[in-house]
């Protein structure tokens, strides 16, 4: 229960559709979604496979709580080998697609091979069909969504699609569902493009049964009460969204600015949650229209924005005058502070295009910021950029870059490689602010020390969602730790990594953990499905998942040497703020972290650790 116990396996090369039982033994060991699908992927692919070859597979996976009455229970993840990193990729998305897929009677979708010609997939309960996508190949996510719904005369479908960037294998292409919710990171959209798969439309009419209905109802109601009564999840996130962090992180001196040259951005207020709430000087209207919830979510942190129609980015483009997904903190930072741009409307437009063309705004913004530094140093010129004056602070340049990268045209092709490949090509790989090839999110690890260890050891390359120690180091959740100290951080990072791996495997949103602990989550999981789920069992599963992902990466060719940070963060001290004069103390944290993990001094999980965890 919590499961349909059914997997859909589609071989795109052969055009075959097979139904398989879900491996329930693995579901006990890996819970679901991130953990369970990673187990399937690792069992089925060669770790050294080229991520964009037909031999790579991709899995769309739900958790036991996806599609149930649990708050935020609408999540799904895409698991594959990522082309940006060459490491395991697992990108999580909200919206409605995951729950609808589960309502169609499936737990997981495994895609293999490569279609001979562009196709899209429809899943209407048991009716699963591949269709010719030649009419929508070369078009955007938004057009594709509309076209499929019209073609099938079903406005209730939920569609996950790639844009032109995914088709052309921009290495940080995303899969976007419900127009502006994305499995965003590590280039999962490029893998879908490499398989000639444009979209997956789902429609389900079945419910999701749970193991013990009465207990489940009580556990989920208790959980919702905790979320409603908690000031962060009950008021802070719905009103201000994640964007409220813009001024917090800037004030704390951990705001990566101009490709991490600085740690505070003078324009942060102009692109913050507070600014989104204020009437614009130009037209007296607010950027933010309302908030929005994903399926079953009682937090509703999503932003819905509308751009000033006279802003240069959308002037004479009425197709962008409607309300759509607004800026989240990560996007606002990557597109704004990190490029030195304080134009809220321009950032909102660029975010719209990232959704419309299916691109990760974090990696896109961070790659543009690296290109801006190369331009500043004279290593990139207008000859390379096709005439774009790529100066820090130029909203016009950013707008041109997103339009070109979304279609992988001109200089956009270079930007589509991501920051590491771009900086390497122009002779300065040290200027790429990445780990394992993936761009940093919005926290400078000189000002938040634990995040340095988080990034360095993340199994999918630099990422905040693998262990969000910002929660403790800055926000004081569950308890406050000193962001400038390295002491105690290895244990903190390990605990966050393991707990998050379990939450990511359950079918719920990680933002619940601002209010919920595993004590709140385990009873909901346990009432939904078999397994005797306790907080301890969930931590054990989280640790198992972490080690399994690590082993895959090692077999793919990574070593402990890849648990590193760019030289800038280890040798160029922060210039201002509380962290002034400091670098990240990774070398102080890493050995202790390896020890706590039960890994060798080189970062290899020992046989003892692997057998303790039954990996």
């Amino acid at each position: 229960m919590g499961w349909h116990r059914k997997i859909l396996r589609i071989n795109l090369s052969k055009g075959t559709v097979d139904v398989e039982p879900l491996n329930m033994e693995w579901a006990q060991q890996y819970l679901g979604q991130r953990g369970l699908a990673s187990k399937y992927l690792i069992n089925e692919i060669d770790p050294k496979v080229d991520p964009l070859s037909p031999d790579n597979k991709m899995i769309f996976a739900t958790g036991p709580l996806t599609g149930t009455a649990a708050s935020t229970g609408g999540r799904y993840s895409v698991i594959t080998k990522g082309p940006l990193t060459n490491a395991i990729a697992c990108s999580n998305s909200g919206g409605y697609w995951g729950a609808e897929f589960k309502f169609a009677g499936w737990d997981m979708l495994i895609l293999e091979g490569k279609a001979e010609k562009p196709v899209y997939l429809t899943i209407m309960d048991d009716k699963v069909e591949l269709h010719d996508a030649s009419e929508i190949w070369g078009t955007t996510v938004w057009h594709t969504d509309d076209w499929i719904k019209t073609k099938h005369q079903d406005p209730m479908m939920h569609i996950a699609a790639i844009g032109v960037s995914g088709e052309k294998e921009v290495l940080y292409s995303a899969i976007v569902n419900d127009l502006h919710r994305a499995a965003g990171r590590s280039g999962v959209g490029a893998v879908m493009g490499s398989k000639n798969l444009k979209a997956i439309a789902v429609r389900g009419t079945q419910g999701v049964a749970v193991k013990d209905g009465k207990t489940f109802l009580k556990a989920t109601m208790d959980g919702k009460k905790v979320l409603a009564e908690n000031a962060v999840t009950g008021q802070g996130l719905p009103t201000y969204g994640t964007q409220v962090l813009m001024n917090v992180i800037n004030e704390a001196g951990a705001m990566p600015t101009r490709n991490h040259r600085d740690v505070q951005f003078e324009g942060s207020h102009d692109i913050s949650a507070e600014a989104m709430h204020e009437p614009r000087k130009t037209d007296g209207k607010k950027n933010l229209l309302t908030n929005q919830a994903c399926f079953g979510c009682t937090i509703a942190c999503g932003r819905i924005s509308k751009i000033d129609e006279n802003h240069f980015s959308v002037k004479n483009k009425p197709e962008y005058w409607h309300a759509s997904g607004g800026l989240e903190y990560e996007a606002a930072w990557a597109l704004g502070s990190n490029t030195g741009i304080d134009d809220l409307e321009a950032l909102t437009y660029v975010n719209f295009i990232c959704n419309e063309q299916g691109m990760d705004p974090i990696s896109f913004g961070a790659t543009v910021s690296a290109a801006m530094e190369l331009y500043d140093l004279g290593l990139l010129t207008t000859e390379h950029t096709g005439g774009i004056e790529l100066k820090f602070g130029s909203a016009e340049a950013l707008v041109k870059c997103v339009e070109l990268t979304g279609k992988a045209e001109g200089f956009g092709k270079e930007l589509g490689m991501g920051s590491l490949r771009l900086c390497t090509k122009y002779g300065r790989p040290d200027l790429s602010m990445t780990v394992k090839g993936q761009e940093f999110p919005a926290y400078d690890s000189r000002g938040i020390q634990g995040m340095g260890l988080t990034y360095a050891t993340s199994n999918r390359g630099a990422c905040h969602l693998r262990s969000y120690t910002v929660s403790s180091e800055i926000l004081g959740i569950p308890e406050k730790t000193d962001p400038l100290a390295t002491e105690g951080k290895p244990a903190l990072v390990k605990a966050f990594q393991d707990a998050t791996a379990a939450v990511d495997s359950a079918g719920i949103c990680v933002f619940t953990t601002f209010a919920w602990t595993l004590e709140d989550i385990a009873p909901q999981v346990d009432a939904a499905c078999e397994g005797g789920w306790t907080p301890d069992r969930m931590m054990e599963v989280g640790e198992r998942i972490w080690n399994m992902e690590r082993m895959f990466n090692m077999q793919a060719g990574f070593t402990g040497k890849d648990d590193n940070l760019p030289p800038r963060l280890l040798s160029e001290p922060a210039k201002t703020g509380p962290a002034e004069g400091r670098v990240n103390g990774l070398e102080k944290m890493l050995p202790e972290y390896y020890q706590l993990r039960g890994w060798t001094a080189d970062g290899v999980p020992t046989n003892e650790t692997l057998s303790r965890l039954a990996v």
Partner: protein
Amino acid sequence: MDVTLKLYASLGTYLPDHAHKNEAVVSVDDGINVEALIDQYQVPRKECHLVLVNGVFKAPGQRSQTVLKAGDAVAVWPPVAGG
């Protein structure tokens, strides 16, 4: 002496009229502590979840002990989070 008071999110309504971009330079008595400044602007103490003085966190127990100097910046948020 002058200090900068920054009140964010729902606390913005407690800022003086001359505030701009959620901050205002305010004149206060020499030797004022963080808690007294918060009280002076009638910001409910229980709403002051995150208090940073020059970017450094001050726990509730430290606020009345933290004496401000001219030019210090006090930034305050209600319970918020993101990611």
